[in-house]
């Protein structure tokens, strides 16, 4: 997937950490996934085979129709991104999700988590 990081020099670590995973992801996906780790916050705006990564507090433009949110501790998110402890993290609520389930499913599959 083609990844564009908006305002890279001031992007937070969560966004930078996600970059490689997103580059290796396969689209197409449409919609916006908000990822929250502790107090760090990014929005991933997918358009087909491209994604723009924005800091949560610097989002601009009309929010897309399909939206979802994933929230958790950094360590739980990293685990899940590797496909490890997915069930445990959901059961213990170390990871919480909300929004469009189809978008969430596509996102997880694109990242190889499922």
């Amino acid at each position, binding site marked *: 997937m083609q990844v564009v990081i908006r305002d*890279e*020099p*001031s*992007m*937070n*670590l969560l966004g*930078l*950490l*996600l*970059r*490689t*995973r997103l580059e290796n992801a396969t689209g197409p996906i449409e919609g916006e996934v908000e990822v929250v780790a*502790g*107090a*760090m*916050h990014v929005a991933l705006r997918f358009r087909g085979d491209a994604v723009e990564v924005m*800091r949560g*507090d610097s989002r601009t433009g009309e929010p897309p129709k399909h939206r979802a949110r994933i929230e958790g*501790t*950094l*360590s739980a998110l*990293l*685990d899940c*991104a*590797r496909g*490890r402890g997915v069930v445990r993290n959901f059961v213990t609520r170390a990871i919480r999700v909300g929004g469009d389930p189809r978008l969430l499913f596509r996102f997880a599959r694109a990242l190889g988590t499922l």
Partner: protein
Amino acid sequence: MLSRDARTGGDIALRLVNRFGGDRVVTDRATRALYASDSTENEPHTPRAIVYPKSVDEIRALLEIAREARCPVTSRVAGLNVGGLAIPAEGGIVCDLSRMNRILDVNRSEQYALVEPGVTWGDLKERLAAAGDEFVVNYPLAPPETSVLACCLMDGLGTLTMRYGSMGEWVNGVEAVLADGTVVRTGAASVSPVWFSRGPLPDLTGLFINFQGTTGIVTKLALQLWPKRRLRERVIVPAYEWAGAFEFSRRIARTGLFDECGGFSWPAAKMLFGVAVPVGRAPAEPAIFFAVDVSADTHAELALKRAILADTIRGVRALGFHFDAPLDVNALIAASPGFSQFSDLPTRLTFLIDNPGGGLTWIGAYGPMSTMEEAARDGFCVMARHGFPPLLVTRPMKGGHYAVMRFVETFRRADPADVARIRALHAELVEVVLDAGYIPYKLPPSLVPAVMRRMDPGARDLLQRVKAAVDAQHILNPGKLGF
């Protein structure tokens, strides 16, 4: 003073070629230019010649020629000390020791390795692995092609420094050639056939540590090895406030249970992820990340140490500080492979070494654990004023008896304005660290006066007398310690 002979070259090059042969004396302009500078802001100086000795006798012969011509000699291996310490005197000779690169012994019972100057961290790692992988050493964050012996002489630091002390403390003794050609052995090996310790004798080894090659050319060094534990893991602990971070590192050091608690601040993490010049800490982003190494012989011991780490984090959280749960370094590497630069040592920190401007420099200083906050706060303030992000590498040393604070900058080496900016920054930063009770290690020549001004006059005088005793003509790496 350089002799006219040394300044003009005279017949030195010829004499060197006659003694060493043309293939081990280099005088061409392009190679000399390579040896004239390093990655730092320190003034370049072009040597007259580069010589590659292969034995102690050859070093003695080189020094004889240098003495007769009163020509300076600077020892060097990779030249990657990041402090201008291997930049030669103008018109001097560089003694490149990279071809003296034998590991003469790995002594398993007394636990030391006897190395020549050209032995690199990469060589040592390979040899220890081949010899049964029983031992660990104090790998720095330096590239694998750098010298183990030079790192020890500069009293550097690595990932076992929190447990066992700085590199100077890992040395059991040395063999060195003095400027007049005398060969000396220090430590236990001056009496015993075994290089088992520094004492119980007057500590002559200290004459060569932190002297930056100004007292002798060291030809052998006995480096302590420590047993490798069966299990080892590295976790990364993100901390959100500086004060909490330093309190955490103090507490971890005092448990006496962990190998490493090395902190790197947010700009380092961002650079690792490809941001060339990080401009600011994003809202709610960790201030610093600690690499904590846990080693153990049994799973029960490992579990106990993990529990103590978790407890320590709970303790600092209870003070109101925000910490994330420890992250498994392998999870970070899986997410972003660049993170392996912080995991597998020795390492090439490409984001520093290959930075677009080509300039890399720092002021690294050892000092009290009690003033880490003060040093960081005032250091960052000066860095910000000069337009640099607060790139800091820090760790408690030797069980928390003291700490290191290394303020790191990358810059455009070819741009005189940027070089001037670094010089102005360092002139202020050195006073800030000294005010906090810290002392720069691998002291770059330009910072020597600031340190010497604060040094006890008796100690300063004694240093001069020691230097005069071992190198009366001042031919060994002149200018590096104010003499």
